């Protein structure tokens, strides 16, 4: 598309354009966003992005929908975030408006925007400035029917992305409140893998905060059963083994199914793994019969990287305690030569499989709908 065509097209993308022309233009744009070239082209044009943003306020439902879909597709590219971030205040208010019909679209858009750490920070800041803190977001997430027209499942990945930031983790893990506890039941939420995955990603990121492990593993939060339950099947253990397991994993019915999504299974195992970083945490995780659950999973597991995660965890659960000074595996100082060797091994591993995130990371695989 040359500059003149672009300007002409842009001219149709205005609120005061004739409805039929407007509709055609937005439809065309959406089509463009379906291809790599189209996306690249539009990503570099803040004027188009701003126009689309304005059109989300249009009267025609079709125009609004198409505009949102285009923006969602485009927001995957970090290059668009500069222009899009300008509208954050408006978007956030719409997100948490219980009556806003397109809250799901806004949610998906925000979830894409928050993947980049920089934009994520901006989202969080805008939330604070607009007085729409995390508390509101969690409330909306955990209230059934908060918005009659939007399921808001993408709040899951949004929360998960936000927990890239230590500030958000701190809020979620506030001991004097009841925030993270409200998320726990959603590790079993069957109706949406997006919501479920988002929660589990959030919890996994929170597990990087080892100072909170004792509290997380204790009675006030009791995180472990919620991580293990999706990994458990309808196994029948002998009575004494059964009674060792956390209450939520005892006497599961015969139709109990394991988590179907392998990425989610992997995240769950990673989260449990993180909880074994401290000696005290390791102790707790072991004594709650985690090994039993992971062993059974390992026998049934077919996905290679999930299997690998199982094996790593099993090693920790049945292995000997590390030597003195190594009790917190997250804080261990690795000597240089060992470090080098490990890095080489990591690179090898990477070449063989998908990258595993080393630190609290953004949600992969939740890009939102494309055309």
């Amino acid at each position, binding site marked *: 598309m040359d500059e003149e065509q672009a300007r002409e097209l842009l001219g149709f993308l205005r609120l005061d354009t004739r409805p039929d022309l407007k509709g055609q233009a937005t439809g065309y744009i959406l089509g463009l966003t379906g291809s790599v070239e189209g996306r690249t082209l539009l990503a570099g044009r803040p004027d188009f992005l701003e126009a689309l943003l304005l059109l989300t306020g249009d009267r025609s439902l079709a125009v609004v929908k198409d505009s949102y879909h285009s923006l969602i597709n485009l927001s995957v590219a970090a290059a668009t975030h500069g222009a899009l971030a300008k509208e954050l205040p408006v978007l956030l208010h719409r997100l948490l408006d219980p009556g806003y019909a397109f809250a799901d679209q806004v949610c998906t858009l925000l979830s894409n925007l928050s993947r980049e750490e920089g934009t994520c920070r901006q989202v969080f800041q805008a939330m604070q400035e607009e007085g729409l803190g995390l*508390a509101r977001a969690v*409330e909306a997430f955990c209230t059934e029917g908060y918005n009659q027209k939007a399921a808001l499942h993408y709040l899951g990945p949004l929360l998960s992305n936000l927990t890239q930031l230590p500030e958000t983790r701190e809020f979620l893990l506030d001991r*004097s*409140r*009841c925030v993270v*506890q*409200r998320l726990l039941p959603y590790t079993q939420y069957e109706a949406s893998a997006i919501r479920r995955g988002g929660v589990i990603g959030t919890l996994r990121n929170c597990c990087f905060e080892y100072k909170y492990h004792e509290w997380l593993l204790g*009675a*006030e*939060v*009791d995180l472990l*059963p919620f991580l293990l339950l999706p990994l458990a099947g309808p196994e029948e253990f002998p009575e004494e083994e059964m009674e060792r397991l956390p*209450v*939520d994993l*005892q*006497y*599961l*019915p015969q139709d109990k199914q394991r988590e179907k999504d392998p990425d989610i299974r992997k995240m769950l195992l990673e989260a449990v793994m993180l909880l074994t970083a401290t000696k005290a945490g390791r102790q707790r995780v072991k004594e709650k019969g985690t090994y039993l659950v992971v062993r059974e999973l390992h026998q049934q597991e077919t996905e290679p990287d999930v299997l690998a995660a199982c094996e790593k965890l099993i090693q920790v659960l049945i292995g000997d305690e590390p030597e003195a000074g190594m009790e917190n595996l997250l804080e261990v100082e690795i000597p240089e030569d060992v470090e080098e060797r490990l890095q080489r091994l990591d690179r090898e591993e990477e070449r063989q499989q998908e990258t595993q995130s080393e630190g609290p990371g953004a949600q992969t695989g939740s890009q939102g709908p494309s055309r």
Partner: protein
Amino acid sequence: MEAAAGQAEEAAAPFLDKFQSQRYTGGFNPKSWEQEFDKIPMFMKKSPAEIDPEQNPDLACLQSIIFDEDRSPEEQANTYKNEGNEYFKEKNYKKAVISYTEGLKKKCSDQDLNAVLYTNRAAAQFYLGNYRSALSDVIAARKLKPNHLKAIIRGALCHLELKNFPEAMAWCEEGLRIDSKEKKLVETRAKADRLKRAEQRDVRKAKLKEKKDQSQKEVLLTAIKERNIKLFLEASKEEDEISDGLGEMSLNGLSSDSVTGTKIYLDDNGNLNWPVLFLYPEYGQTDFISAFHEDSRFIDHILVMFAELPPWDLERKYHSSNLELYFEDEAREEMYQLNTENTLLQVLQHQRYFVKAGTPTFLVLVKQSPFSKNYFFGKKVHRLK
């Protein structure tokens, strides 16, 4: 000045003189001064439960002042609230409820006060264990003041006691929306969640046990049916109609616990072991064998049981060689003699044998004894050839 003083002195003089001649009569009695002391309102350590105007006119007087009907309903209600709070502090919850109720009866226009009265009454009811009344009080309080945090906390605690765990959690979450750091609410929610999950586990455990018991019962029934053993059915059925199919052979005819609390069971070798009752009608005695292996013979048990003559055998005649065993066909009121060399299984398979209440029962009589002759009178007896 001097004149006035002088006048006072003059008036005082005859008054003072009185003390010299007359005894003061209004003083305390040296023997009962402590009781009298306690009756003076100002020196009371605690107020009496009931105020009797005749016993205690001063106190009754004070009471009528503070509960004066002329004061505004708000003032009266407030007084009742305070009274209730005092009783509450003393842990006199019954009285507290009464005071708060009186306060509410005033129907004063101060809704905040009424909400507090309801909430406080709810607390008193809570400590009396009247959780439902407490709950209805907090609901009433919240109608007046939906965000009254104390009412919400109390409501959550009531639901917890009533084991309505999801409701308890919902109330906690409502309260936390108002004050996200309210300690009691955070605690209570965690507790309710724990108890809810434990309860869910208990339900699962019970279900699993029921399933197991059921399948065990079915295995037993199959084993019994395979052996062509008939169970006595309580419902009236044609005696020749042998029930077909497991479903019909009602599990009720095979009660899981026999009369003496033992079950039939299938052992590891696939053999049935039955609880068996031996009756000795002559002396009204019984013997119970908790696990009679189906392939064991009666005679072997008899030899052991009567190796020594039982103490109730007054005529010393119950030697194993003298004994005859029978079972009764109740439907036809006929008796059948057992061949003691037979196994239990063989006997149970008898065409006219019906197992009642899961416990095969047999009668033991002495050969040719006068008692047995009597016992058989009027009955048809099928003897061994």
